[in-house]
């Protein structure tokens, strides 16, 4: 009788019925989540998520630690090329920006699936909402948000108390502190973000950046950027002849005292690194006065994922308010929630209110406005142009 009632209720809501099918199918699956493995706390968080999804849904997560997300994209491309349309090695990818664009354009993604996730009701999925646009590319349900990213700088306030208020100001700052500043190699996402942050501030007409790049637009909009960079580069770490591989290596340089500035795409990262004893506790966060670029990190499911149902369950688990609050805890991950506070009930809100604070943890309001990312095609051009300009 109760079963019948349940069946009737489920029948009344096809989406929910589908979801219970997904849950049933997912039970017992192992989801191979390809995620950048350079941050041990993220790795720990994913391991924690696995214990949670296993207890709740019988789904275990196996993190495939990447040095670069492109590795996972290449893997799926290779499988597609070899005609492997099912049983693919990659179930879930931590992805955004150009990698998402590349996969979406090549038809390598499963979806749209986001709206079917029960916890998507806590996310603002309106057409202009941050979770609906990834580097100006419409998400269209092909990737599910999981953590918020906003470009910030960090400095050691004990060694270098003064910081520039604008990107342009870094030229004078570096001249006054030669060798004490650098940025990750723009072949890496973080290094490219540094150039984009400067481009957004220095471009004569930032509105053009939202459009796909053209030769003419690129020449016009990036001219001030390269003039700025040419003035900055001689005073960079190692005279701008070598660059840290990614932001983690640069954080290590800051910890070692080799440089005074680091940059992150996670405002809570410095507080988290202080907490772990990696950065000195005198490190503080700052952003340019005009604001900084920001975006959301997503998870996507390849078209040929062997464990698609399990991957959807994991994507849904990541949007659970309890998960998001756990993630925002600075002692855990310290990533800001992607959920819309207006959509949370009192219990969910209380989870966030109870989180601990830290001196190096900025309030979201202190970080200034979030500037839109340029269209993903700009990043590719910026990276290539930078490589050509700086090749010895």
């Amino acid at each position, binding site marked *: 009788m109760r079963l019948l009632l349940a069946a009737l209720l489920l029948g009344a809501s096809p989406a929910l019925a589908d979801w219970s099918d997904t849950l049933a199918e997912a039970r017992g699956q192992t989801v191979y989540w390809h995620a950048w493995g350079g*941050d041990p706390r993220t790795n720990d968080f994913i391991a924690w998520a696995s214990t949670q999804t296993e207890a709740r849904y019988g789904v275990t997560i196996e993190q495939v630690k990447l040095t670069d997300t492109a590795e996972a994209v290449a*893997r799926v491309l290779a499988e*597609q090329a070899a005609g492997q349309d099912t049983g693919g090695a990659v179930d879930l990818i931590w992805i955004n920006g150009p990698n998402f664009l590349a*996969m979406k354009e090549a038809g390598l993604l499963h979806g749209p699936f986001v709206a079917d996730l029960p916890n998507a009701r806590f996310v603002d999925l309106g057409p202009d909402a941050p979770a609906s646009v990834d580097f100006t590319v419409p998400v269209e349900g092909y990737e599910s948000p999981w953590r918020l990213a906003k470009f910030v700088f960090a400095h050691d306030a004990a060694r270098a108390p003064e910081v520039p208020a604008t990107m342009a100001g870094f030229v004078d700052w570096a001249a006054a502190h030669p060798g004490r500043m650098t940025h990750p190699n723009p072949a890496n996402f973080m290094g490219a973000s540094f150039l984009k942050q400067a481009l957004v501030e220095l471009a004569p007409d930032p509105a053009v950046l939202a459009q796909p790049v053209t030769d003419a637009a690129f020449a016009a909009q990036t001219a001030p950027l390269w003039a700025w960079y040419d003035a900055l580069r001689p005073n960079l770490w190692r005279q701008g002849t070598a660059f840290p591989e*990614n932001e983690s290596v640069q954080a290590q340089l800051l*910890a070692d005292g080799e440089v005074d500035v680091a940059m992150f795409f996670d405002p809570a990262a410095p507080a988290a690194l202080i907490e772990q004893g990696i950065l000195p506790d005198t490190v503080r966060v700052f952003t340019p006065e005009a604001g900084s670029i920001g975006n959301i990190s997503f998870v996507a499911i390849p078209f040929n994922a062997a464990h698609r149902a399990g991957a959807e369950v994991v994507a849904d688990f990541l949007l659970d308010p309890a998960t998001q609050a756990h993630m925002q805890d600075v002692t855990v991950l310290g990533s800001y929630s992607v959920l819309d506070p207006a959509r949370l009930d009192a219990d969910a809100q209380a989870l966030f209110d109870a989180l601990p604070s830290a001196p190096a943890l900025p309030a979201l309001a202190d970080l200034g406005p979030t500037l839109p990312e340029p269209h993903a095609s700009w990043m590719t051009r910026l990276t290539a142009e930078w490589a050509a300009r700086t090749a010895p």
Partner: protein
Amino acid sequence: MGGAHRAVTGLRVALLLLIGAPVGLGAGLTALAALGWQPGLGGDLSLAGFAQALALPGIGRSLWLTLLTGLGATLIALALSVPLSGWLIGRAGAARVLAPLLAVPHAALALGLAFLLAPSGWIARLLAMPLGWSVPPAWPLPGDPWGGALIVGLVLKEVPFLLLVTLAAAAPRDIAAEMAVGRSLGYAPGRVWARLIWPQLYPALRLPLFITLSFALSVVDMALILGPSHPPTLVVQILRLLMAPDLALRVPASALALVLLGLIAGVVALWIGAERGVASLGRHMVRAGRRGRAWPGCAAAGAALGAGLPLLALAGLALWSVAGRWTFPQLWPEGPSLARWGRVDWSVLGTTLGLGVVVTALALALAVAVLEAEDRARRPLRIGALIVLPLLLPQIGFLQGLTSGFLVLGLPPGPGAVIWAELLFVFPYVLLALAGPWRALDPAHLRAAAGLGAGPWRVLGRIKLPLLQRPLMAAAAIGFAVSAAQYLAVLLPGAGRVAVLATEAVTLSSGADRRLAAVYGLLLALLPLLGFAAALVVPDWQARDRRGAGDGA
């Protein structure tokens, strides 16, 4: 006799399929990819990939850096190995020290060395106090644009290898007598070694030298940690292209792999050409007849540095693995803290161990089969080229092609593909390590056993293998160490699904947590050492056991 011949033929075919075919398939697919054709994707054959590859920013400097680091490291290592081997030759147990030194995987040594050489490393901290530094010096290590740190790392790994092969080549000769003759002619001992004895050993060193050269020109893990980055060496550039999301970039990547192959072939050809010049110069110097002076301290100092630097690097890893906060210029960290050891994913250690055991067991079984088949057929199997090929070719020149070939053949990336790929590199070393002792077995024992009516299987099981227990264990330890050190052979055929200590250590070397990287680096360094310790201890322990049983009887 006919059965033995059939067995030999079967074994040759099996080895061809197991070792030769994957290398050929991988190299062939890489060459096709360089010309624009990839399995599944198709494509028109053209040379556009080469044009694209050679138009990459900084590619000229990449080529130059590859040459500089690969050739430079090998020349320096060779130059150091001559006096050092002369110094070691009379010293008992030298090989026992060298083997563990050789066993430390490149990635672990590179990590330790990077920590040591960095502006905030131990060396700089030692100098900071007397020089009054409050921030780290601005020296560009590791990753200096000239490849210096990479050369140091390569030299530290190559010298023990060259020393071991030199000692092995010298083993059959009566070196003490030759030295006595040389010294009676008034030569300083170092000169007798370097000008009279060593040149006679050189023919046996050529192949190991070419393997060393090829390795140094195509090393990946060490170049990722110690090498220059902007631009990097050729092989790192190839890896970056292979890992890029755009599959079309596999074409220039494969083209560069062929360029690298050409570079290696060119360097080897140059080397062979230079041999004549050096030889005639050497003869001229011998004829000139200068006797030289003894420099007893130099070789000892060199040996101390060569063994001391890796030990210091490993000590640094050990310290970082338990370090709390460690700000510059403090000489010692706060702590100790075991927090990072609590964060170790022990399944990675298990995977490394498991792969090593399986691959080593397969390689040992194959090696025993080859040597036994040679005994029974009473002729060599002539598989030299097959064995040496995977060691002479740059790994990046065929492993990517092999991975896509495996995929097409229905072997998906994963542990199976990794085991097969690792076997290509483990088997040659195991066979080479076992062949000498096997062929040196006293035939009288075997004839006596056969005379007592024992069949070939009984001779193998009851006489040969027990007599060869020590060499078998030593070969297993070498095989295990080679397996644990594999990076590219796990990364590419494993497609990220197979995590071992080497891949984790390299990944973490580009993370923010040096302590966790140190933990994995240390585990990576210790695992093969434990293998060598076991190879030394187990036969002793078993021998004691057997003696005990004999006493009781």
